[in-house]
């Protein structure tokens, strides 16, 4: 009994303090373990902490994250900390952290998540070059803070959303679909229409992939109630006209004609790519990368949360694009898998 | 009976005279206007019809039976029939008897116009005559009859369900004024005659009233005011009459000879249609009849309100109501007056101006016919041309079953629209665009003529109706597949087996009410399984909700209609719903909890080739 208890008190290293890490930590706490969250940034909650409202029910992201953070009060949390090295010793891993702490753990959970595609790489869209080009993440930040030099200076009459920026694009290094951008674009388009009721809003899409619960409703609402224009065609280039407004070119593939429109704001739906720091750390742990650039799971159908190495588990977007609910479910699954692994 | 007032006049008759004069002038004016609106040909037809004794007799018979006795209402609901005929016939008899009294006793006063109405005020009873007693009795009897009717009418306002009506019409303000004044006329007459009964004589109703009144009131001062009140009530009623539903009384008397003369609706708002609209008594039978009424909001779009809005000239509502209707024809079928509401609606739709009009001049018949029938088609007696129609293309199981049945029966046939054809033109017609429909009809006629067939077989009742009514296909028999298969079975070219299915048959609007085919499909189905009936069936069957007649009803708005029609069909727990229309099939299949099949499919499953 005593021995059992000792094992149960094991520490488990969770790399990444986003929603996957937080949720896994909460579950592990409930199961009686001591999770140690190692987060390289200065805050918990990852990307979600910077967002405003979440589809499909427009739940406030910050409240969700705040609740998740509150739920992991018993865990050890190291912010602004990275893993320097890790060695396997028998059944355990010795993990050295940048803050000098060394942890001996039976299991490591990788919850390093994703990284937003660097929209600068799509040079033709002029992110960082034109004053009125922003990303989905910038827009979420603006929803939260109402501060952004790109919005508010001039009157906004026309807004464009470019889907698939850095997704489904071999030349941008990511041939995969980032899954959530379509619904995010529609959500943000609706929110912008609410902010600027007189503005015309255009969504430039290649395919609309609205796979999730109630996502299609967003699409219908956007069309019907908000009059958002959907133009099937990928934006080919963006330039600035003499008034400093954006001239956007695309093909209207449904008409089979080139199309241009002048806009006051262009929002790029930057896709998800694997977190590069996470990948580096994964290669340090001798984990493999899958063909889509994300970390390779033991099996992509039945065993997404397990890696090919004993004692190393995954949760969330480090293994591929995930929605928030998928990430949370996966974090719970990972916690259970870790529990089973330790009790093997 | 002698004159009580030597002058034969009292000022209280003035209101009545004013009201009567107004109504008569108004009706005369209305009649002249209507006549002017008729085309020359129609006007001639109308007046000539009175010279035809057969039509004249029919006019008189129809007016008597419909306007006074309300025979159709009796058939629908006895209490409702009694209520209407007691008021109408009773009042009519009061007027007739009043005149008879004047003729019998004071023939010199007949030209005063008001004597027959206020007879009892102006006369004094002398030595009681037998004739007088008979009249007194009859007058009291009919007054009692009318009063019964009025009481029933009051009850109906509160409890319409007793009269077989779930919903009644919501009355307009003037309608209410008219209604209350109508209600007031007869009790006031009773009072007035009661107060004068000791002078003018009375019978079982008025004499006791006179005793009571005189016992309690004791003087004759009440007499004149009650006659005034009676006259004023008459005046009010007649003055508002042209602006209320009671206009139906004179209008219907014009409508009946017009209909018997064979007039047709040419314009939604003029002539015959106008008389029809004014003939609507707002009884509200069409509200319950309307399949859309399953949703309360739709009740305001039923025929009674269309008529009312047309009378008011509310263009926006007229358009809304006209466009929304499914054109199922049930209101028209149940209408006591015989108002052809679907036709009025189509005529109304036809008034609309379009900035862009369809034109099919680019479609040439030759290549289409060649595509369907090949070169050198030989005319052959007995050869059948099968036209599936647009809607059947969306329910290919019907056309497949039809082909299979035709093959089993060894019928030689051509398939006109196997690779798609033209529309039949009925939807265009229903949308109120007869010129465009005519173009389509002409194209199709060309194709049919070059097929060499002498029978045109249709799977879709929508097509069937227009092919039958609007195409000029002399020498070619137009037949719906339910009739045709029935014939094949009767001629033993196809043998069918009885099965264990319990089948309910849904009458498609265009086939049943639209084309009068009710029995053939039922007889056919009875040979295939146990036939049960729906709650409302035949002429009263409920539209599936899918009708192309409605222009504005959206997909979501039709759901409740279809579900209600299904509820009606399944009261006798059938295991299978049979229909004979691709549109009904598609509508019902969407929501039905049991299989829905076309009659052709059921036949195909249960038939074999006759060796």
């Amino acid at each position, binding site marked *: 009994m005593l021995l059992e208890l000792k094992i149960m008190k094991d520490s488990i290293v969770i790399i990444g303090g986003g929603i996957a890490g937080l949720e896994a930590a909460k579950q592990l706490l409930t199961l009686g373990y001591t999770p140690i969250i190692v987060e390289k940034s200065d805050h918990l909650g990852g990307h979600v902490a910077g967002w405003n409202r979440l589809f499909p029910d427009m739940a406030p992201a910050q409240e969700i994250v705040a609740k998740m953070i509150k739920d992991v009060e018993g865990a050890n949390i190291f912010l602004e900390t990275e893993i320097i090295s890790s060695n396997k010793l028998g059944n355990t891993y010795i993990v050295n952290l940048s803050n000098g702490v060394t942890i001996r753990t039976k299991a490591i959970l990788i919850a390093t998540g994703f990284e937003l595609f660097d929209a*600068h790489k799509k*040079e*033709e869209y*002029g*992110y*960082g*070059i*034109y*004053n009125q080009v922003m990303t989905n993440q910038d827009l979420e930040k603006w929803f939260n803070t109402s501060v952004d030099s790109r919005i508010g200076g001039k009157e906004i009459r026309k807004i464009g959303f470019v889907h698939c920026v850095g997704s489904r694009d071999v030349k941008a290094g990511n041939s995969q679909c980032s899954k959530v951008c379509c619904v995010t674009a529609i959500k943000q388009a609706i929110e912008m229409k609410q902010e600027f009721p007189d503005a015309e809003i255009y969504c430039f899409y290649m395919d609309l992939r609205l796979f999730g619960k109630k996502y299609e409703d967003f699409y219908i609402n956007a069309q019907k109630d908000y009059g958002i224009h959907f133009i099937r065609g990928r934006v080919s*280039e963006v*330039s*600035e*006209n*003499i008034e*400093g407004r954006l*001239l956007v070119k695309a093909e209207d593939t449904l008409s089979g004609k080139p199309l241009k429109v002048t806009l006051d704001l262009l929002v790029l739906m930057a896709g998800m790519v694997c977190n590069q720091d996470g990948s580096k750390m994964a290669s340090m742990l001798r984990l493999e990368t899958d063909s889509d650039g994300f970390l390779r799971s033991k099996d992509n159908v039945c065993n997404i949360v397990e890696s090919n190495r004993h004692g190393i588990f995954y949760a969330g977007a480090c293994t591929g694009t995930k929605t928030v609910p998928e990430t949370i479910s996966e974090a719970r699954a990972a916690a259970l898998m870790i529990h089973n692994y330790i009790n093997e | 009976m002698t004159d009580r007032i030597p002058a034969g006049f009292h000022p209280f008759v003035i209101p009545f005279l004013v009201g009567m004069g107004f109504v008569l002038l108004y009706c005369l004016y209305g009649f002249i206007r209507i006549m002017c609106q008729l085309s020359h040909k129609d006007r001639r037809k109308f007046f000539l019809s009175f010279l035809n004794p057969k039509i004249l007799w029919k006019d008189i018979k129809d007016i008597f039976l419909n306007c006074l006795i309300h025979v159709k209402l009796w058939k629908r609901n006895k209490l409702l029939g009694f209520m209407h005929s007691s008021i109408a016939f009773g009042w009519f008899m009061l007027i007739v008897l009043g005149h008879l009294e004047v003729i019998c006793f004071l023939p010199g006063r007949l030209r005063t116009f008001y004597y027959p109405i206020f007879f009892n005020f102006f006369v004094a009873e002398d030595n009681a005559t037998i004739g007088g007693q008979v009249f007194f009795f009859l007058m009291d009897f009919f007054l009692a009859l009318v009063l019964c009717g009025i009481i029933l009418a009051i009850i109906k306002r509160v409890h319409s369900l007793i009269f077989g009506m779930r919903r009644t019409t919501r009355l307009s303000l003037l309608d209410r004024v008219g209604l209350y004044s109508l209600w007031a006329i007869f009790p006031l007459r009773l009072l007035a005659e009661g107060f004068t009964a000791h002078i003018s004589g009375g019978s079982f109703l008025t004499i006791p009233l006179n005793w009571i009144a005189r016992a309690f009131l004791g003087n004759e001062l009440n007499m004149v005011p009650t006659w005034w009140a009676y006259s004023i009530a008459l005046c009010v009623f007649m003055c508002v009459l042209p602006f209320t539903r009671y206009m139906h009384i004179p209008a219907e008397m014009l409508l009946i000879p017009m209909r018997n003369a064979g007039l047709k609706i040419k314009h939604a708002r003029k002539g015959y249609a106008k008389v029809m609209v004014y003939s609507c008594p707002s009884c509200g039978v069409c509200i319950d009849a309307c399949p859309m009424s399953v949703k309360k909001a739709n009740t305001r779009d039923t025929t009674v309100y269309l008529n009312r809005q047309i009378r008011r000239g509310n263009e926006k509502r007229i358009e809304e109501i006209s466009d929304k209707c499914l054109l199922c024809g049930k209101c028209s079928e149940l209408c006591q007056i015989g108002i052809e509401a679907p036709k009025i609606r189509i005529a109304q739709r036809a008034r609309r101006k379009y900035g862009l009009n369809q034109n099919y001049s680019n479609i040439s018949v030759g290549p289409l016919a060649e595509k369907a029938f090949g070169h050198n088609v030989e005319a052959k007696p007995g050869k059948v041309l099968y036209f599936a129609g647009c809607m059947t293309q969306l329910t290919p199981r019907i056309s497949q079953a039809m082909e299979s049945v035709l093959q089993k029966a060894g019928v030689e046939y051509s398939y006109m629209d196997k690779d798609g054809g033209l529309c039949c033109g009925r939807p265009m017609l229903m949308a109120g665009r007869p010129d465009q429909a005519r173009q389509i009809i002409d194209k199709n006629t060309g194709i049919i003529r070059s097929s060499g067939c002498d029978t045109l077989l249709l799977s879709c009742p929508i097509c069937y109706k227009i092919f039958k009514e609007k195409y000029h296909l002399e020498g070619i028999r137009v037949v719906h597949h339910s009739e045709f298969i029935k014939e094949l079975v009767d001629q033993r070219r196809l043998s069918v087996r009885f099965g264990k299915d319990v089948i309910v048959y849904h009458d498609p609007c265009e086939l049943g009410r639209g084309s009068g085919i009710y029995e053939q499909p039922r007889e056919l189905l009875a040979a295939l399984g146990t036939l049960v009936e729906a709650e409302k069936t035949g002429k009263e069957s409920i539209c599936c909700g899918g009708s192309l007649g409605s222009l504005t009803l959206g997909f979501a708005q039709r759901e409740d209609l279809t579900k209600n029609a299904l509820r009606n069909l399944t009261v006798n727990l059938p295991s299978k719903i049979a229909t004979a229309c691709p549109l009904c099939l598609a509508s019902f299949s969407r929501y039905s909890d049991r299989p829905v099949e076309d009659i052709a499919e059921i036949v195909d499953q249960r038939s074999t080739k006759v060796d």
Partner: protein
Amino acid sequence: MIYQGKQKIWSDYQKEIPADHWFYARSCIRQNFFPASETHFLKIGRELLGKDICDNEHHTTCGGISYHSDTIPQETAMTIVARQFAIMTECGYKNIAPSCITSFGNYTEILETWREFPELEAKVREMLWKSCRKEFEIPEHVAHTSDIMYTWRNEIAEKAKFRLINKETGEPLRVVEHIGCHYSKMFPHKGVGGAEYPCVLSGMVNSWGGQVIDYPERRHCCGFGFRQYLVKANRGYSISNTHKKFESMEPYKPDMIITNCPGCPYFLDRWQYVIAEMEGRTYGENGFGIPVFTYEEVAGLVLGYDPWDLGLQLHQVAVEPLLDKIGIEYDPKAKYLGLNEKDIMKPGLPENLRCF
């Protein structure tokens, strides 16, 4: 426009350009239409900056025109290019500097193709040997002559007599830079500054005092497009593209256009005449056109060479208003005098486009 953003992109696309020892590959079109431009590139390089540039008379066309006009297969183009490399190798050079953008694109494309498909390279070596008995080495560097001029831009600026500044107002001249499509659109990393915001010409303009304008259709093709012009039935399409560019740049009131491709200056210049005569539309001030220059011509002008020595009389659009603006002196009478002072005759004047 966020200038820092552009600078960041420029820094991402810097190619290695050796300072000296180039094998010069001439351009078919430029030799004929802008002979002075090539001459002045050699003159500036050799005489002013003391560079070693080999101009060998045995090299030929690169085959680019025929290749892009679908008249020869790629293997033929490759063998022609291989022969150029062989001559370069024979002359003892390792870096090739084509004067033509199409050649530059052609060389780059062929080298990239050989890198992907070495068997093709082997085949071409065999074909070259069979046809000419020549062998070649792959050049270490391929740089367009505008790339090289780009590296010289600051030295030229130091030695310049004039700057791209309006003498009257002191304002920098508004310059449209037009880059040949085959410069970096196919291989962005082979161009200075990449494909979206190339800085090869804008770098020169900025160094020489001008101001580059960013107009919406700056990436658009000049309209030449080989088959689009060469097949007469397609010429309407060719000129429409040029028209689109001018319509887009016109609101910015550009003073001049600088180009680095053989076809572009020719078509941007001549189509202005055709548009003026067809539509009555001119794009410069006072009924003139917008003068179009090669980068060598612009370098020559800022260095103070005589405009007529630079061949500017061969332009359709009159250059004099611009020369006046900068303050460059010229002798109007000498405009149509040839090298030997002989009258080369004045061309007829167009109806709508103002010229001298």
